[in-house]
């Protein structure tokens, strides 16, 4: 039981570590929460509302990245036909920066 516990813990910390190393320029949701509190980025509610007008569909994944002193939201949205859309929005203004369909 104890050994199992140990293995699981190692695995989990490994995973968590992978997550953090992976996101060197990606922010975790606790950081995002703080940014939002300080008013540096738009609320996710507004961002999603705006994204929906650009590309309707189901949100699959969202990430906030730090880029050249600004913040950029990278959204993955699946439309009604099942195509995956990748959308980049300025996190401060909501302005669309990049838009493409992934195959």
């Amino acid at each position, binding site marked *: 039981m104890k050994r199992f*516990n140990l293995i*699981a*813990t190692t695995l*989990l910390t490994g*995973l*968590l570590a992978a*997550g953090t190393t992976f996101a060197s320029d990606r922010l*975790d*949701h*606790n950081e*995002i*929460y703080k*940014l*939002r509190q300080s008013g540096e*980025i738009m*609320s*996710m*509610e507004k961002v*999603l509302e705006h994204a929906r007008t650009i590309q309707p569909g189901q*949100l*699959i*994944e*969202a990430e906030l990245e730090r880029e050249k002193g600004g913040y950029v939201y990278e959204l993955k949205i699946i439309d009604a036909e099942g195509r995956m859309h990748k959308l980049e929005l300025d996190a401060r203004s909501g302005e669309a920066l990049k838009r493409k369909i992934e195959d």
Partner: protein
Amino acid sequence: MNSLRLRLHLLVVAGLALLLLVQMLGLRLIPQTLIENYVLTRLQHDSDTLYARLLLTPELPAQIYPTLGTVYDTPLSGHYFRITAGDHVIRSRSLWDEDLVTPTLTQSFSSVSHLAGPAGQQLLSYSHRYEVHGETLTISVAEDVTVMEETVRGLERQLFALSLLALLLVLVLQVWILRRALRPLDDAVESCVLLESGQARELKEQGPSELQPLLQTINRLSRHHGLRLARSRRALGNVSHALKTPLAVLQQQADEMDRRGEKSEADAMRLQLATMGQTISRELHRARMAGSGTPGARFDAQLELPALCEALRKLHHRRVEIELTITGEPCALDADDMLELFGNLLDNACKWAGRRVRVSVQQNTDGLRAQIEDDGPGVEQENLGNLTQSGLRLDESRPGHGLGLGIVQDIVEQYQGTLKFSRSTELDGLRVDVILPIGKNGAG
């Protein structure tokens, strides 16, 4: 309120409304409970899984990611958890840049609450208190139930509309059934009114079993009424016939006495005899008139008057031409009464007319109007009022018993009508105006 139909309708409406209310209550509670129980089972399960995850970590982490599948990771997905232990807070990644206000449990082990979530979501939240690493912590797991609630409301609205439609349908059906069931009553009322105005009609004795005894009774009463009336008429007829012979004998004896020279005694006797004769005639007539408004034939001027005119023309040796104009539909007046009335008026007119008599009749369901004019000498203005006094004869030179116009007056009074004498403007003789209304009491 004192209407059987209204009462039954109100009862049905009240009953159905109550049913509708119970149904609405059920509709509101049952799906709600079902959904909440279903969602809560899942939330409890996720809460226990989170607890197990925390047990595996040496100390409380700042975040748990990836967690229980993508729903707790995708931003604002509608599935959230929040773990509090003192000041330490672990939010699910799906909460992203939002936070929830979850209850901190100190007394009870678990609680269920409704929370307002991000992006206008309505959340159902389950919180549970656990002990991990010697610390007391509360795990709250919440799920967005907006869509489910909306579905339930939609279902509720549809079912309500359907129930309302069903209620209206039942009401319409009830009105129809009641109308059908109570139709014999309307028939019975109509029959009684007809009976009053002189038309006997056998009622159909079919109908609801509650009404059948009434219909049978009305029929029996109508038959009984007719029989009794005929009997009393016959009895009076018999009496008058039986009295005729003795009266004639007495009349002869009076004449005999006159011849013997006892003139004053004979005159006294004749006077009494005349009074008796008048009394018998009047009573006989009254008995017949009591029959107006009882089973008898309906008077149709169109059918009856031409024959009557022809008979009178013959009676007066075709000396007089009778112009007859009749308009309108037959009305509910007793045929015997009307024949007697027109017979007397026409006979009177023919008696006095030079050559022409003009009769015009207007009849409809409200009653009857008639004008009878002749080209005879007419009656002086001061005597017009005396015309209907029975026994009084303005002109003794022509044959008659002095009863004719008196009988007419009786009949007109019986129908609460009016009788007017005047001078004819066109024929210059007597003009008689008769108006017989058929009101509620007109034929009484």
